[in-house]
């Protein structure tokens, strides 16, 4: 069942590369409809009360090194699979895309499904790396100006991170002889490695994941990459690819190295707070809308990191706070995925209409296209954490969990909410207000069809979020026990 979801996009990629160029995007969207249906079927058959993995498939692969083909989902995996299934069609609809672009997107989608369901390190790492190549090519070939530099930077950064992680895991394997996530997590409780080796391995994995998220100060590839990538690719990068890093922290670093996390906890929290504050400040300084949204992505993922590190850094872990922080992080993963993708989508529409995306290239849009402004404002308010929309729920729970265990870090981090508000207020003023001075077409029906469902989802999560919590509540309980 899970293998089907991983394979379908690959078949799709084949189909698309064989199709006529003008049909490519249609095929890609069609295959995404199939994956979405499969993902929704999983959701239906998923037992939210069961702890542990579901839909497990286990086959021997390379027994000599303990590599198994082991896939399965728990609540967190399902959440991410649903997110991927949601963001990809949305991204494909965002702009015209050539055949190669569509095919690569599908390959990337397959890699993401694999990453979020693999339960064995070798398999996971394979998928993790498999996502890197299409992203690199998509930026390198179809990016805007400065694409060569951005693509190279993206590749080198993430690749170096990956190498560090691979070496670290080889170290673990030689010491403990397993690549299985569950087995490793069980070993992690009593100390996976000891002495200096533990710190080297910890540093390797941390580096790999921190680059991927990205966490300050390993983030400088991100603004360049997101800025130059085609809009659809930016949506996928921020909506789903960045979640691989957060996922890695939850699945690997925190369970495998509880002691190390605790010792360097304050430093990690400091990095998370730096991510939140400096990224939002840098977003304030941007004139390019795409770059601005890119920086806010770092800021929002910083909240996830704050929640995780807050749990990791305390000795006495109060259950209520741990569950709040974890729930908040998972919620934020999902919310950021759809909200940031929506923001990139709107920036793409702006750029498509005016051929520019500077803050000063617009003005008075409210006079010309009130519906466009209205829907875009919803996405912006969602991103700045307005209650009633999705963004607030996750941030509130993260802050609730982290405030109880790391009050001073949280107190500083909360100012990120203020700076984000300033950034969006400034953007809205520059884009929407003032006298109408330029032609600007209103939202078209096909664009409305994309925007309305995603916006309704933001409202639904903001007002009655229980249906999302149901997906991962039992996973949260289990993980809270694991971390305690």
């Amino acid at each position: 069942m899970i293998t089907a979801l991983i394979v379908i996009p690959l078949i799709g990629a084949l189909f698309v590369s064989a199709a006529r160029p003008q049909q490519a995007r249609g095929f890609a969207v069609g295959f995404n409809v199939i994956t979405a249906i499969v993902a929704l079927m999983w959701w239906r058959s998923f037992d939210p009360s069961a702890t542990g993995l579901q839909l497990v498939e286990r086959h021997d692969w390379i027994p000599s090194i303990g590599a198994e083909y082991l896939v399965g989902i728990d609540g967190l995996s399902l959440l991410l699979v649903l997110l991927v299934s949601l963001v990809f069609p949305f991204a494909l609809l965002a702009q015209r895309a050539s055949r190669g672009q569509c095919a690569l997107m599908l390959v990337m989608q397959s890699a993401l499904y694999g990453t979020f369901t693999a339960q064995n390190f070798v398999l996971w790492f394979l998928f993790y790396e498999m996502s890197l190549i299409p992203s690199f090519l998509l930026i390198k070939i179809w990016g805007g100006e400065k694409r060569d530099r951005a693509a190279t930077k993206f590749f080198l950064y993430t690749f170096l991170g990956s190498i560090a992680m691979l070496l670290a895991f080889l170290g673990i394997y030689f010491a403990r002889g397993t690549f299985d996530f569950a087995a490793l997590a069980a070993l992690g409780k009593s100390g996976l490695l000891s002495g200096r080796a533990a710190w080297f391995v910890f540093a390797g994995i941390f580096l790999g994941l921190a680059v991927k998220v990205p966490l300050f100060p390993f983030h400088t590839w991100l603004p360049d990459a997101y800025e130059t990538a085609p809009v659809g690719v930016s949506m996928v990068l921020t909506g789903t690819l960045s979640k691989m890093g957060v996922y890695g922290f939850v699945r690997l670093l925190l369970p495998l190295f509880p002691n190390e996390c605790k010792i360097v906890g304050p430093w990690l929290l400091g990095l998370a707070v730096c991510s939140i504050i400096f990224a939002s400040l840098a977003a304030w300084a941007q004139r390019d809308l795409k770059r601005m949204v890119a920086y806010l992505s770092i800021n929002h993922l910083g909240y996830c990191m704050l929640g995780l590190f807050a749990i990791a850094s305390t000795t006495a872990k109060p259950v209520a706070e741990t569950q709040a922080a974890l729930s908040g992080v998972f919620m934020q993963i999902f919310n950021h995925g759809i909200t940031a993708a929506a923001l990139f989508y709107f920036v793409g529409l702006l750029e498509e209409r005016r051929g520019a995306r500077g803050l000063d290239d617009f003005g008075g849009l409210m006079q010309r296209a009130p519906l466009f402004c209205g829907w875009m404002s919803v996405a912006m308010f969602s991103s700045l954490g307005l209650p009633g929309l999705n963004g607030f729920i996750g941030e509130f729970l993260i802050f609730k969990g982290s405030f109880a265990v790391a009050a001073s870090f949280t107190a500083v981090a909360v100012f990120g909410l203020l700076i984000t508000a300033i950034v969006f207020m400034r953007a809205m003023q520059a884009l929407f207000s003032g006298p109408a001075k330029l032609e600007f077409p209103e939202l078209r029906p096909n664009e409305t069809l994309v925007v309305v469902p995603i916006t309704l989802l933001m409202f639904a999560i903001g007002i009655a979020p229980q249906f999302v919590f149901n997906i991962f509540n039992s996973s949260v309980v289990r993980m809270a026990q694991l971390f305690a």
Partner: protein
Amino acid sequence: MTPWIVAHVWLIPAAPLLVSLGILCLPNSRRKPAALLALLGQIVALGLSIVSFLQTLHAPGFRAVYNFTWFTFGEQTLRLGFVLDPLTAAMLLMITFVSLWIFVFSIGYMAGDKNFSRFFAYLSFFSAAMLGVVIANSLLLLFIFWELVGLASYLLIGFWIERPSAAAAAKKAFITTRIGDIGFFLGLLFLYGKTGTTLFYDSGYGCLEVSALVAIGASATAIALLIFCGAVGKSGQFPLHVWLPDAMEGPTPVSALIHAATMVAAGVFLVARVYPIFSLGAVHGVTTSLTVVVWIGVVTALMSAMIAIAQYDIKRILAYSTVSQLGLMMVSLGVGGVAAGIMHLLAHGFFKALLFLGAGSVIHGAHHKQDIRKMGGLRGVMPITFFTYAIGMMALSGVPLFFAGAWTKEEILHATSHWPSSRVPYFLMMAGVVLTALYMTRQMIFVFFGQRREASSHAHESPRVMTLSLVVLAACTIFLSVFLSPAWPWLHEFLLGGSAHFAFGKIFQPMLFVSLALVAVGVGLGVLIYRNAGERDPFQSAQPALFHFLENRMWLDELYEHTVIALAKFAARFSDFMDRYFWDGLVRLVGGVGKLGGILTKGFDERAINAGVDESAAGASGAGRLMSTIHSGQIQLYMGAAALGMVALLLLYAWLT
């Protein structure tokens, strides 16, 4: 059994919210249905508010809650709820009633606007959010509605979005109040962490009830002050008051509803709602947090009253007056006069809405001019506006006996005079009363008396639909005083959960004569200074430096601009700079070292190794030419090949297992 209305009190905000969504779905040209729908929403809300109010009359100190689970995360549940008690009921009644008449007024005032229906959608949305704030039985739910109120205010201040100044004012309001809200949010987190609940009342387990208050203990001061930050932002208290005068960029009914009667009062309401946290561990009614409330209130009240004297914009004068009155309410809460503060809030809602609508009527009549120097002599042409405005002015100044504001102000002075910590706030508040009477007299003389000037030369009385609201609100301002006087302090006892007894003799308290004297001094001074005022302000001529200082709002906006805001902007640019040059530079340095290594190795390769290999390479190049025909450079082909290869691998895998 829970009474029906308690379980359905949520319908009160739901009605205008639904209406708001409904209007947004209407096409912009459907003006009449939009206005009717908006009025309908308000009438339903008012009707339900009356039902709730009657419910609270059943027993003194009635309080009923309706709590429910919002969501479950992990194994924890997050519960929210609604409360119905005298404070809620009184606020509901005031908000729905005043809103209704402001809506009626708006039909006339906004008649010519091209976004007429959108205006009513926003206005209804605001009303819904505000009603949500007062019925919330959870600090989190209150915060949620609080933020929505902020959003509504943002939308309405920036309603004329084509004006850059309106857009700037809206942005300023949103950001400034959000600064306060950051504190509020932290206070909420703190309280939630300490007590494990956000519910106010939950049959003994709510955060305002005994067991939780014990758990809060020494953190009470910190929590209270953090929550107070939110109140400072929303209620325009010093030092976050700067947004409120700018908010006058919005249409005048908005100023009346949001920035006079309801939203700005939310801060005062918030303090009153969580008062048990502020007063926890009080010695003789004094705690650190309440002392801070008092002094912030004193500074705000006095400072803005002084600034109001040197403003020319009719709406800005009222805006500063609002800030000043809110300061007064804060003082009242701080010294322990909770009932007095809330009573003043309620009375202020009526007469300040009246004054703003009166100002709107004046602006409407005076061809959208707002400078009081350009007006004058409007008494004759706008008689209804004049009389109702005069009633509002007397209520605001605190002319005793017949006006709602006077009794409440008197009671606040009374409470302040008994504050054990210091007598200074009492004297300063007396000065504030004099100043209030002074600036209101000044405004009356400039606008309604003297010669008719530029803007008032062709002035006319406003249409019926507008003056009707003025008359109703003016009547209420007078009528309300029945419930407020010390002879029958009905509202006071209602809020505190006691029962009022009639005693006529209590009307003549010493404070009555004190306030009478203060108002007389203020009005007398005003008449003395401004009796011959024309285009020029006599005070400006006499004290140009002082006037300039006050006219420019004590340079506070400029001070913020050059300190806090400049610093924040610098931090933003600095972060960007660090990213572009420092962090990225480090990365490039690492890359450079790698590249250097590459060059060195390459040199070694070429000289030592390649020499031999070159020979064999010549043979390979023939094969290469053959291969290059396949390498067409088309990415599609590559991808197709890659995909094919992957499928082949998968098939291989399937076959092997």
